């Protein structure tokens, strides 16, 4: 009797876990199916590589892809080194006192701040105060601020996974602290850092609110080359999607374009996430072997 009850309890618990997992996967599947089924009609090489035409009711999304690329690049160049160095300082150098704990909590909390707040902050700081103008640079820096908490936290966690004995071993051989970190800590933390950074970047690439006030534009007829591109307003995939889905005058007519844009954006983010997983896998294998 008792054994039977236990067996049922076991089955019930297991069932709840399975149900929760299936539910999560189902939501993802429904979203992906909805977007790709409605967007696949318009997806073509031409859609990806041509500019919008006829008041954005026809043509492709090439400028939005280019814009997202440049903005993401600025984000990476700003957020990755800054986040990495901050994490190294917090984890390896800073005394673990109350101030550092408060800083760490503040950073964690920043990752929960709504992106619209970053948008307004970026607008205030980069546009109003620093007057760098609505531009790729302002948008990228704002997205960089948004990703910083993720980069710092991921990098710090990655540094924490490197065993203390690697540091002690190197120090005992007469390595300086920086030599120890550079040669015997960072190489083993890189996969974790990269994974966290790419995931943060993927999130940034899909954000609309932070670029809304800092440089995203409705249309980008000329695609200037580097470095001029940094100082112009730009199109970006998430903003383009927002326009096509809610702001366009012929909203029903452009609906397929909105779905196509969503499909491309999701595709890009999936590729980035897959890259993160692959990098982690490669490094794990490498360090298992070596």
């Amino acid at each position, binding site marked *: 009797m008792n054994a039977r009850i236990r067996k049922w309890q076991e089955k019930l618990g297991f069932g709840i876990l399975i149900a929760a997992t299936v539910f999560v996967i189902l939501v993802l599947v429904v979203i992906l199916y909805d977007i790709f089924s409605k967007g696949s009609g318009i997806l073509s090489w031409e859609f990806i590589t041509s500019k919008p035409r006829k008041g954005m009711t026809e043509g492709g999304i090439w400028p939005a892809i280019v814009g997202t690329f440049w903005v993401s690049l600025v984000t990476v160049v700003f957020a990755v080194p800054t986040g990495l160095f901050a994490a190294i300082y917090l984890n390896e150098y800073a005394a673990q006192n109350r101030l550092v704990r408060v800083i760490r909590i503040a950073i964690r909390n920043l990752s929960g701040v709504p992106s619209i707040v970053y948008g307004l902050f970026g607008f205030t700081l980069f546009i109003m105060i620093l007057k760098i103008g609505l531009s790729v640079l302002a948008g990228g820096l704002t997205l960089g601020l948004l990703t910083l908490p993720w980069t710092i936290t991921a990098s710090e966690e990655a540094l924490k996974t490197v065993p203390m*004995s690697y540091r*002690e071993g190197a120090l*005992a*051989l007469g390595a300086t602290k920086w030599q120890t970190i550079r*040669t015997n800590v960072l190489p083993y933390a890189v996969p974790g850092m990269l994974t966290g950074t790419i995931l943060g970047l993927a999130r940034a690439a899909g954000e609309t609110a932070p670029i809304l006030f800092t440089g995203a534009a409705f249309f980008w007829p000329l695609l200037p080359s580097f470095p001029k591109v940094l100082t112009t307003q730009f199109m970006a995939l998430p903003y383009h999607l927002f326009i096509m889905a809610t702001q366009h005058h012929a909203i029903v007519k452009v609906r397929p374009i909105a779905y196509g844009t969503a499909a491309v954006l999701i595709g890009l983010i999936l590729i980035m996430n897959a890259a993160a997983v692959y990098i982690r896998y490669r490094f794990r294998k490498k360090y298992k072997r*070596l």
Partner: protein
Amino acid sequence: MPNPTNPIELVTRDFSFYYGNYQALTSISMDVERNRVTAFIGPSGCGKSTFLRSLNRMNDIIPGTRVEGKVLLGGVDIYNKDVDVVDLRRKVGMVFQKSNPFPKSIFDNVAYGLRIHGERNPSAVAQRVEESLRAAALWNEVKDRLDKSAMDLSGGQQQRLCIARALAVRPEIVLMDEPASALDPLATQKIEELIFELKKDYTIIIVTHNMQQAARVSDTTAFFYLGELVEFDETKRIFTNPKEKKTEDYITGRFG
């Protein structure tokens, strides 16, 4: 104190150590002889490992620690502000309780210390790696797979690799913190034989939990209890005719 037969390599005078407000070592004075094996014994928490780690300032990396007194190496106090801790640790090498090879190749593990000290000449590095692996009695077992991961070696081999890595930077003193405590009897025996060989070229200080090991490998033995150096003498005398009652009680297994 034992009657020295060899020159004195390292001297400590009234050395005390604190973790915050907790005093872990009280006024330790000791002369360590060159080319001999000195063993530190005592029950857990007696301060023997803390003392060992004080001799190459590894405790510096623990926040909130403080020292009093002197540790003299070549007449210079290693806690003097002018002393370069990097240089000190090159002279005073360390082997840890849990073998800690880096996740690199066998070759790169041994070469690590050389490279961080600026040795760039590949043939010089290779030569020193071979010397060090030979000195650690590991060369014959690994010479055909130097480029393989050090993580694939057995526990005993890993510990001898760590010894080779410490020897590669040519220290004067090698500190060993229970180097065989995680090893099987056969691997332990190899380490002990190695220690016996190494004292020809190095001064060795070994912390051990195992009193038979102390009796087998060491020339002088220091018995620590509650952060104090209770007795320090020739190993033979400590184990046959200790002066202190506490020492006798410990080595005969009445507590510990």
